[in-house]
């Protein structure tokens, strides 16, 4: 009998073990929901499966009576647009500033303390200020994402740029590169895959800020919907939305990981 630490489940075992907790969770839910519904058939807290199906059908496959739109898709498109815009802008700022401060000692001395300071400010605490500065339009929502995740990305990029072995920077110089060429041909291509991982890491926070922003000022979006129906405790809408958000988050993460592997084989191969 091998030690536990040396024992590996097989392929099938792995799948079975991985699915088990989900199945258990689902069963727990069903039991609890049944119990509550028995006590109060109008209970909104733990709706039966059939209510979910109805709600999903209503939101995703039937046009809304008031606007004629398919609510789930409208919300999804609105939220994803904001998310994409916010993350793209943050990533661009992070890339530029991170490379600049990570590569040029003078810029590092000037900006690092500021960025460290900013990264510690909790964005939720300055929400009111943000809304007043940026208004309540799309800009504010995107800005909240940007303010929330950019300091992290900048700091990560800076660190990654600093981690590039000094030998390679020296090498570039012996091959005749000037500072700008070192940035363009050495630092930039080498931090790109790291930017992707930084983005993946910060996507969780980005969703968080998006939902928080949509809760306060929006007329559509996944976060808006959840906060709107939260007032009526419509769990039959909230839970499918949560699952849907989780699924979207997973897909985005997975896609980025795959893309990185495909685009930067040298990065993943060398690790």
């Amino acid at each position, binding site marked *: 009998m091998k030690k536990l630490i040396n024992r590996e489940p097989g392929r099938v075992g792995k799948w079975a073990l991985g699915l088990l907790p989900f199945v258990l969770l689902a069963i727990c839910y069903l039991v609890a929901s049944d119990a509550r519904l028995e006590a109060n058939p109008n209970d909104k807290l733990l709706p039966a499966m059939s209510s979910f199906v109805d709600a999903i059908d209503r939101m995703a496959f039937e046009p809304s009576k008031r606007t004629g739109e398919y609510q789930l898709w409208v919300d999804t498109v609105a939220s994803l647009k904001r998310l994409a815009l916010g993350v793209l802008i943050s990533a661009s700022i992070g890339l530029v500033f991170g490379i600049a401060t990570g590569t040029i000692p003078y810029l590092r001395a000037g900006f690092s303390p500021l960025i460290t300071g900013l990264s510690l400010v909790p964005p939720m605490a300055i929400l009111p200020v943000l809304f007043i500065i940026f208004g309540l339009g799309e800009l504010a929502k995107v800005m909240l994402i940007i303010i929330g995740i950019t300091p992290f990305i900048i700091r990560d990029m800076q660190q990654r740029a600093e981690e590039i072995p*000094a*030998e390679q920077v020296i090498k570039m110089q*012996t091959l005749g590169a000037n500072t700008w060429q070192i940035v363009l*041909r050495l630092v930039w291509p080498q931090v790109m895959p790291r930017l992707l991982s930084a983005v993946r890491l910060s996507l969780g926070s980005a969703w968080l800020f998006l939902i928080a922003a949509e809760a306060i000022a929006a007329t559509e979006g996944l976060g808006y919907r959840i906060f709107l129906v939260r007032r009526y405790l419509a769990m039959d809408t909230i839970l499918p939305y949560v699952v849907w958000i989780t699924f979207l988050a997973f897909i985005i993460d997975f896609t980025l990981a795959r893309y990185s592997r495909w685009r930067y084989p*040298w990065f993943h191969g060398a690790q």
Partner: protein
Amino acid sequence: MAAIEIKNLWKEYGDQVVLERLNAKVEEGEFVTIVGASGCGKTTFLKMMLGTEQASRGQLLLDGEPIAAEPDETRGIVFQRYSVLPHLSALRNVMLAGELSANRWLGLAFGARRRALRDEAREMLESVGLSQALDKYPHELSGGMQQRLALAQTLIKRPRILLLDEPFGALDPGIRRDMHKLVLDLWQKQNLTVFMITHDLAEGFYLGTRLWVFDKERLDPQDPGRYGARVTYDLPVGNSDKGTLQSISHSVDSTARALA
């Protein structure tokens, strides 16, 4: 006039004296191999040649001028590791020097210029025996292939001075011998001035036209940083009778044990 002149060179890190009173003249085209105990300052000397470390006292002259205080095109280098750029294929690694000088802003070449660079790089890679691996990334190459690639990358720039810091330390003995041949070959073709650090005394004797031994003449075992290393032997190669070899080896070993 000697190409390189070292005049009473000292290097200290705070209290610790690493090198002291180095004096030497090196002519264009010499092949200087450097041996010495670990930690006695060989790499530090190479860094001063390269311009990434500055002397504490004394001077390091190239053609009578103080040598540039930062790395530039006159001096090529191959380190023991990290010597090629991991994000470029072998061919692109070798084309890099040409691309950088082709366009000051983009560091890229286009059209005919690019094709010329590619052909030149291909030829260079062939001469180091990497014609099968043009499109491979460094992580797909073995250690020996990476070092050959590093040599190709450095030599295509035709530096005046080539600095090698234990470039073959991580290689199999057989592969290492192939590399020796390659280096000697390129050295003769390009009339390089070479400084090469090695751990292997035999390699030092075999490759160089001149062998330097860095060692501490005075050694305080309680405080090894009190005195620095000097060039204790400066031998034109050919003069390698067995006695010298053994006495060098003995003195280097005892320093190594004290420093370890």
